[in-house]
């Protein structure tokens, strides 16, 4: 199989992966940037933010009324505007991806849910029901609202603070430490993987067959695994060198201030 006849496959896997890695790094960078901007949510104590945003997510999950979910989403949009996060950013980074994923899952429900028929697709044996429409709207709106609220937290709070705030919910220290360490190394490994694929792409001439692509994918995963293990060994030695003896301390220095 040559790339001549299959233009779309040409380097498809490598480019696709690079794109995905790039998008993730981009998101992380944007979060870091927007968390240090000045705005309403950036000024709030992280614990208040975590509790309040979690409460909003819960409200939108519990309610059976569409307008309540829509109101929570509207509130999230107002909070975003007050925290110097533009609606364009929300639309491109949150709403679009959630809509494609959740929308694809929710769309068949319009036709599959039995109930009062409000529209028949001409020529096909498909009928949209009022109940189906409502349930699909609920699904999409709920997913959008929860995703917006979660990213509001991430976009307005440095991740170290998000993790510290989790302690308020009695999340065990070990878990928070592992979570924090993972967050840190995800960024490093995203970069490593990105570089790996970039260099592979620059060395690739012509088209790859699917078998070759698969082989590259497995080998790159393997290379990444061996780097992971090496890095974990290095980190362990570094922890020991700095006197780590199994006790974990985290700085809990959030203070509520009057405004």
């Amino acid at each position, binding site marked *: 199989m040559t790339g001549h006849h299959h233009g779309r496959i040409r380097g498809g*896997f490598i480019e*696709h*992966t690079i794109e995905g*890695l790039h998008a993730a790094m981009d*998101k992380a960078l944007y*979060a870091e940037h927007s968390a240090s901007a000045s705005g309403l949510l950036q000024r709030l104590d992280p614990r208040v933010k975590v509790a309040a945003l979690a409460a909003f*997510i*819960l409200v*939108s*999950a519990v309610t*059976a009324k569409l307008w309540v979910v829509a109101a929570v989403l509207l509130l999230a949009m107002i909070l975003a505007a007050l925290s110097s996060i533009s609606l364009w950013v929300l639309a491109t980074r949150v709403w679009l*991806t*959630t809509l494609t994923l959740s929308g694809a899952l929710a769309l068949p*429900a319009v036709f*599959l*849910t039995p*109930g009062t028929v409000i529209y028949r697709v001409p020529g096909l044996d498909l009928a949209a029901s009022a*109940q189906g429409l*409502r*349930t699909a709207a*609920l*699904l999409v709106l*709920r*997913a959008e609202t*929860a*995703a917006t*609220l*979660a990213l509001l937290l991430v976009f307005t709070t440095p*991740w170290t603070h998000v993790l510290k705030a989790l302690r308020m919910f009695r999340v*065990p220290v*070990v*878990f928070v*430490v*592992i*979570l924090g*360490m*993972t*967050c840190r*190394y*995800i960024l490093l*490994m995203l970069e490593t*993987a990105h570089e790996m694929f970039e260099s592979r792409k620059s060395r690739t001439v012509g088209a790859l067959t*699917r078998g070759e692509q*698969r082989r590259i*994918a*497995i080998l*790159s*995963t*393997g290379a*990444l*695994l*061996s780097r*992971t293990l090496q*890095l*974990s*060994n290095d*980190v*362990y030695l570094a*922890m020991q060198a700095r006197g780590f003896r199994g006790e*974990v301390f985290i700085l809990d220095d959030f203070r509520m201030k009057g405004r």
Partner: protein
Amino acid sequence: MHIPDGYLSPSSCAALYAGSAPFWYMALARVKKALHTRLVPLISLFSAFCFLIMMFNLPLPGGTTGHAVGIGLATVVLGPWAAMLAVSVALVIQALFFGDGGITAIGANCFNMAIVGSLVTYVCYRAMAGRSPLASFRRVVAAGLAGYLAINVSALLAAIEFGIQPLLFRDAMGTPLYCPYPLSVSIPAMMIGHLTIAGMAELIVSAGLVALLQQSDPSLLKATAGAATTLKELGPGRGTRRLHTLWAGLCTLMILTPLGILAVGTAWGEWVASDFSNPAIRQQIAGASFQQPAPEHAPKGLEQLSQVWTAPFSHYAPPYIRSATFGYFLSAMFGAGLIILACSLMGQFMRGLRQ
């Protein structure tokens, strides 16, 4: 398979958080004991690795692409408990920081993929790899198949969680409030994709990377290598460890008990006296008995004997509890509790006899 927000009802989410909690607790307790070892950075780095390979879209035979979750490999290298934590952490970060998978559904996603996934991998891998040497090809096959099975069991669990939503949660107009697809839609929809694409991706990654580790660093495969190599390391606590696994299994079964409510029809041979005068149930009895009509009246003996004892939790639904699901659950707790109590009393008694 990442369940988004809004597809599971808050009560289902809460139940799955509660189902995950004891496993997380035990996993954390184990890790805490080993905190001075290299396990902490290894778990962290592994969960970063899992996060990354979820982004690699593997080209699969047949022209599609799919991504692996890394449960298979994580379990083979770290063991089931540490793998549970590593995959859970990756899922939490995905949901919280990258919007993949719902915040409310973190418990459900962790339960399906991290917890059940790593337990299934562990059991299958140990069973299939047996006592074969670390570098044997049998271990490669075992890891691949274990990963494949784990992904499919996780997908089936997610499909069941989706499928029971329309049965349990509807508003007055009949609008499903959460996932609208019944089991007859959700199970095939989930399983077709996972039996083929996602399962294949996990199989390729698990088998390929175990083969790679066999050559580069076989010592990493020791943690789950089986009785021959781990007996010494596990030491005297081995018996209780086995028991822990059994306890965990029992907990899972208890949490899953409300599924019993979904079964239709009556259990064959478990009819009560009044069933024989109910036309609808008579028809069910006939249908389940090769169209043999049920007797006109309840058998005399059945009628007399059924008066002797009335169960406190008749039909697994205590009359003072409104919610059938909760009643069922409570019955399971009560029943299992009684059995455990009876067994421990018997154990005490036997020990007394021996001394």
